[in-house]
């Protein structure tokens, strides 16, 4: 156990993150990288970008509250120090996505009102389910909700956004690449640390599975709303007008031709399959919200 947890130490984190893939970045991207000019000029596309970025900020704020709140409930020093690195990762994500809103033309004073305007209410419900466990200092349920369900969802969403922006919006793709690298550690810790605790406390399974079902329900509703909210493909709001024609593929879908429904289906399917696999590995059974 001690050897396994040493992989999640702050020393390792310092070497791999600030002194590794984030070195020479500014707000997670290259200092000379900018949002594409064509995108900033097109009001419809800019608004779609703002809407997407607001959901990312809301998700990261929830992750920041959850990871910091779990430190107090963690049973050992090594778990506390890992969660400390995760807290800073999440704080960084809040900062870089907030900065992206400013880069998209939102004034600093309008930040909270913009978030209020565009936030998906289902994402708020998703956060409430998780933070209720955190407030109760339920470490096992909190880590499953945070590091398996929330991070598993974020990981897949970031990968999809990365796939759809890498050609046409290198700045955003670069920002996402750093967050994906962070999420890998978070989901890894969740699986590795919690598997052992679930075996130790099997009586907690039904309650955790209920939480997963509720979170999944709100997540799918969020996806549905997001893809329906924009006449543009919500999956590719990170690219400039016309970019879908040259964008690549995601989960076998040709991004130039895929409909919003197809994109929503592909993303949901990826996330749910990830949930089933990861939950299975730690000894929990995936609960369908349907």
């Amino acid at each position, binding site marked *: 156990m001690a050897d396994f947890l040493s992989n999640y130490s702050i020393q390792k984190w310092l070497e791999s993150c600030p002194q590794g893939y984030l070195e020479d970045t500014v707000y997670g991207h290259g200092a000379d990288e900018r949002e594409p000019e064509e995108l900033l000029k097109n009001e419809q596309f800019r608004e779609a970008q703002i809407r997407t970025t607001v959901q990312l900020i809301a998700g990261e704020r929830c992750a920041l509250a959850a990871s910091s709140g779990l430190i107090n409930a963690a049973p050992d020093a090594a778990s506390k120090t890992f969660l400390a690195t995760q807290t800073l990762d999440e704080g960084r994500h809040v*900062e870089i996505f907030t900065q992206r809103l400013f880069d998209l033309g939102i004034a600093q004073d309008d930040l909270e009102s913009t978030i209020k305007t565009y936030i998906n209410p289902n994402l708020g419900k998703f956060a409430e389910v998780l933070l209720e466990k955190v407030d109760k200092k339920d470490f096992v349920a909190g880590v499953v909700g945070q590091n398996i369900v929330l991070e598993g969802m974020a990981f897949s969403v970031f990968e999809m956004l990365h796939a759809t922006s890498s050609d046409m919006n290198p700045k955003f793709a670069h920002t996402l690449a750093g967050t994906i690298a962070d999420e890998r550690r978070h989901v890894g810790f969740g699986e590795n640390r919690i598997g052992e605790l679930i075996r130790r406390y099997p009586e907690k399974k039904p309650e955790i599975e209920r939480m997963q079902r509720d979170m999944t329900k709100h997540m799918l509703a969020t996806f549905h709303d997001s893809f329906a909210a924009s006449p543009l493909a919500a999956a590719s709001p990170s690219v400039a007008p016309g970019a879908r024609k040259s964008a690549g593929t995601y989960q076998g879908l040709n991004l130039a031709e895929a409909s919003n429904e197809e994109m929503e289906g592909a993303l949901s399917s990826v996330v749910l399959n990830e949930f089933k696999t990861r939950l299975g590995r730690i000894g929990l059974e995936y609960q369908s919200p349907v």
Partner: protein
Amino acid sequence: MSNQSNPHELGDADFHSTVHSFEFWFEAVEGYLHGRPYGVSPSTKDVELDERQREGLITTLCNYCVGETAALEASSGMIRFAPDRHAKIFLSTQVVDEGRHLEVLLHRMAQLGVAEPEAEIEKRANRSLLKFKDRLLDFVDARDWEASVLAQNVILECLEFTVFRHHSGTADPVTADMLRGIVSDERRHMGFGENDLGRRLLMAPHTHDRLHKIKRELDTLVLDTFEETLGELGVDRAERPDLAGDYLAAVARLGFRS
């Protein structure tokens, strides 16, 4: 926009958003942590300690672990009720600093041959410091921002800053190197606390009396901890620096008299 590379030419808003950002933290710690695994330069040579010195150092490190665990749990708990985005992001950098301190202290204890640090900490922890930790976490649980900042970022950080600075001047080379890195972090934490609370007291002077009561309650615990720590470090009573003086000066700047 003013000259961005001359800090004294920044406007107040620019200054605060700069120093409370992840970007600032990131570039600041790069300066003194890069290439220093567990906070110590690889070129720093360890020296052999005699049994009395080793025992004294282990007890001291155990107490530092209590303080750092308190700081880790309190600063992380405060994120949820921090009043704004900048405070939340600053606290998230503080959380990782505190986690790092705990990690390097435990690493040093392992180098000194401590196999079960949790048990050692339990055995050697200073009772006043444990009581202080309980009170601090009470304030955090009650989501009392002013009391939490006073207890955590003003009182506890000032205690640690003062003791670590003094100890780094007398410790063995490896411990001294490790402590200097911690002191560099503590400057940020302490400064954040004093400035945040100072602004709040100006805006809401009526909170002063309430906080003064809390400070008086915690004073005894802090001063007992100072005394006990110096005893563990083997510093003669006559030669003890005025560690409490630094602490009292900080709270006096906020308008609290003893």
